[in-house]
C-alpha cells in the first residue's frame, strides 16, 4: 500500500522536495548574510553607543526574500489543496479507490496508510519550512522583537506544523464528503482561511488572560522583550478612555480632551505647572501578552489545530468506512 501511495504521488512529492531544496538554499544563503550583517551592525553601534535606534534604522536582507518568507504563511494551505483534497476526492470520483479495495486492501488500511502518509508528509514539509524560516528570522527577531505578532507568529515555531496537519486533514475530509475534486478544493481553501482567521483574530488573544499595566503618562512603560501588544491607550481621571489624537495633542492626549488647566498648552505653549499637575491624573495603560508566554501560545495553538485535524480525520474515517463504496 505504501508503494502504491508513493507511485501515485511521486511527481508531487518530488516537486515538493525540489521546492523545499530551493527554499533551503535560498534561506541558507540569505540567512547567513543577514546574520553577519546584523552582527557587524551590532558591533558598529556598540562602539558608537547608538544601538537603541538600531531597530528603526537597520533593514536586514532584501525585500524580495522577505516577501517570500511572509508568503510561507500560505504554505500549509497548499497541502490541503494539492495533496489532501485531490487525493481522496479524485479517487472517489473516478472510482480508482475500488482498485485498491478489490486488491485485498481493506478500506480501513487504505485510509490509514493514505491519510497517515499524507499527514506525515505535510508535517515534515511544514516543519522543515518552519524550521528554516525560524532560523532565518533569528537576527530579525532579535532586532525587531516582533515574533509574537500575528503574521510573524504564524510562520515560525511549531504552529506551521499544526496548520499543515489541519489543512491536510481538512482536504481529506472535504474530499471524502464532497467526492468531487474541484468543489473539495474550494471547500478546503475556504475552510482553511475562515478557521485560521477566526483563531488568529478571536481566539489567540485570549489563550491566557492578558496582562494590563497602567502607568504614569510621564514615565511611560514598555514591556520587555518580544511582547504582543493587544491594546494601548490613555485613561482620563474619571476612568474613561481618551480617544486617540487626531492632529494637535499634548503628551498623547488630543486637544479636545485636555483638562482646563491645559487650555493654554493647547495652542502650542509649553504646559505650565498647573497643567502638569492636572495631566498627572491621567494614566496610560497597555494590555499585552508577555514575551515569556510565546512558547505557551505556540503550544496552545498547535494543540488546537492538531485536535481539529484529529477530529477531521475521525469524520473522514466514519464517512469512508460506513458508507457504501
Amino acid at each position: 500500500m505504501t508503494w502504491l501511495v508513493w507511485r501515485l504521488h511521486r511527481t508531487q512529492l518530488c516537486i515538493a522536495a525540489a521546492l523545499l531544496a530551493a527554499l533551503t538554499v535560498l534561506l541558507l544563503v540569505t540567512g547567513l548574510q543577514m546574520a553577519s550583517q546584523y552582527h557587524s551592525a551590532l558591533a558598529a553601534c556598540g562602539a558608537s553607543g547608538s544601538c537603541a535606534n538600531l531597530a528603526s534604522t537597520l533593514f536586514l536582507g532584501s525585500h524580495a526574500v522577505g516577501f517570500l518568507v511572509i508568503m510561507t504563511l500560505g504554505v500549509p494551505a497548499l497541502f490541503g489543496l494539492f495533496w489532501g483534497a485531490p487525493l481522496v476526492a479524485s479517487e472517489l470520483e473516478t472510482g480508482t479507490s475500488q482498485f485498491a479495495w478489490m486488491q485485498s486492501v481493506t478500506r480501513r488500511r487504505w485510509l490509514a496508510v493514505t491519510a497517515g502518509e499524507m499527514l506525515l508528509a505535510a508535517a515534515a514539509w511544514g516543519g522543515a519550512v518552519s524550521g528554516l524560516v525560524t532560523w532565518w528570522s533569528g537576527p530579525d527577531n532579535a532586532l525587531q522583537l516582533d515574533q509574537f505578532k500575528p503574521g510573524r507568529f504564524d510562520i515560525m515555531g511549531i504552529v506551521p506544523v499544526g496548520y499543515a496537519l489541519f489543512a491536510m486533514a481538512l482536504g481529506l475530509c472535504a474530499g471524502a464528503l464532497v467526492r468531487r475534486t474541484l468543489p473539495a478544493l474550494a471547500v478546503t481553501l475556504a475552510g482553511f482561511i475562515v478557521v485560521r482567521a477566526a483563531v488568529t483574530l478571536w481566539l489567540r488573544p485570549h489563550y491566557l488572560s492578558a496582562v494590563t499595566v497602567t502607568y504614569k503618562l510621564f514615565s511611560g512603560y514598555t514591556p520587555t522583550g518580544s511582547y504582543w501588544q493587544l491594546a494601548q491607550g490613555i485613561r482620563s481621571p474619571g476612568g474613561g478612555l481618551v480617544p486617540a489624537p487626531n492632529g494637535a495633542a499634548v503628551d498623547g492626549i488630543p486637544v479636545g480632551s485636555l483638562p482646563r488647566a491645559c487650555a493654554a498648552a493647547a495652542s502650542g505653549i509649553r504646559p505650565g505647572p498647573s497643567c502638569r499637575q492636572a495631566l498627572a491624573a491621567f494614566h496610560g495603560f497597555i494590555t499585552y501578552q508577555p514575551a515569556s508566554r510565546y512558547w505557551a501560545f505556540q503550544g496552545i495553538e498547535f494543540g488546537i489545530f492538531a485536535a481539529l485535524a484529529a477530529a477531521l480525520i475521525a469524520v473522514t474515517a466514519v464517512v469512508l468506512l460506513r458508507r457504501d463504496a
Partner: protein
Amino acid sequence: MIGVQAVPEVATAIRTSGLSKRYRRVCALSDCTITVPEGRISALVGPNGAGKTTLLRLLAGLTRPTGGDLIVNGGVPRQDPAFLAGIGYLAQEIPLYRRLSAEDHIRAGAHLNPCWDGESVRERLKALTIPLDRAVGTLSGGQHAQVALALTLAKRPRLLLLDEPVAALDPLARRNFLAILADAVAAGGLTVVLSSHLVADLERVCDHMIMLAASRVQLCGDIDALLAEHQVLVGPRKDTSAIERDHRVVLLSRTPRQVTMLVRRNGPVIDPAFQASDVSLEELVLAYMGQGAPPALTQLTSIGDDQ
C-alpha cells in the same frame, strides 16, 4: 443428456437467503434466494434496474444488505484481507489508474495482495499484444478490459463477479475476453457470475443462470435443467385450466382460435391437442423479463390473427 444435474453435496460458492437491499425509499433487491455451485459460470440476467448491480455489489462486500443472509466462499462478506483476496470484482467503469502503466498495476498488485501471480498477467497481455509500459488511459476499451481482467485473475480469486464487463467491447474483444474467462475456469478453482445483456454470449459460455426482474429472483439454476423444464405449447383455443393447475404458465397469449403458452413443466404435459416445442435461452429470458412474446410465439399468433 439434458438432465438433472444438481447433486446436494456439491460445494456452493454463493448461497443467499431472503437477501434484500433498500436505499431509503427504493427497494433495489428483495427476498433474493439463490445458490451457485462452485465451478459454474453463471449468467446474471434481467432488465436494467432489476437489481443485478446491487446483487453483485452485495456479493463482493462493497455494500451491506438491509435484510437476509448471504454466504460467499464459505463466509459472510466483510472487510477482511482474507475474504477480499478470494473475490474478484470487475464493473463496467473499470477502476484502473489512467496514468499508470499495466506494469505499474502489476507491481501494485504484488504489494497489495497476499497471493499474486504477476507473470500470468504479463503472459496474457503479451499473447494479446497489449503493451505493458504504456499508460492504461491510452489503451482502447477492449485492451483496458483485458488488462483489468488479467489483473483481477492474477490474485487467484475463488469467485469472480463481473458487471457487464463486455458491454462496450467489439465482437473480437468480447470473444477474447470470454475465452480467457472460460480458460481460467477450466484451469480449476474458479466460479464466475457474469452479468450481461448479450444472450448469445451467455448461451455460449454460461452453464448456470440467475434471472432477476422487478428486483426479485425469477429463475436460478443450471441452464440445461431450466431449458428442459420449460416448453412452448401451441394449440386450439380451449380450456387450459388443467394445464394451468398442474404447471406454471409463464406466458399466455390467446387469439379467438388459438392459445399459446410458455410453461414451466411439473412433469410431462400429456395433452395431445397441444404441439410442444423446446424453448431457446433467449425466448426464456425474454419471457421472464416480461418484454413481450418471444419471436416464435409472435409468428404463431399472427397466423391466428388472419382468420
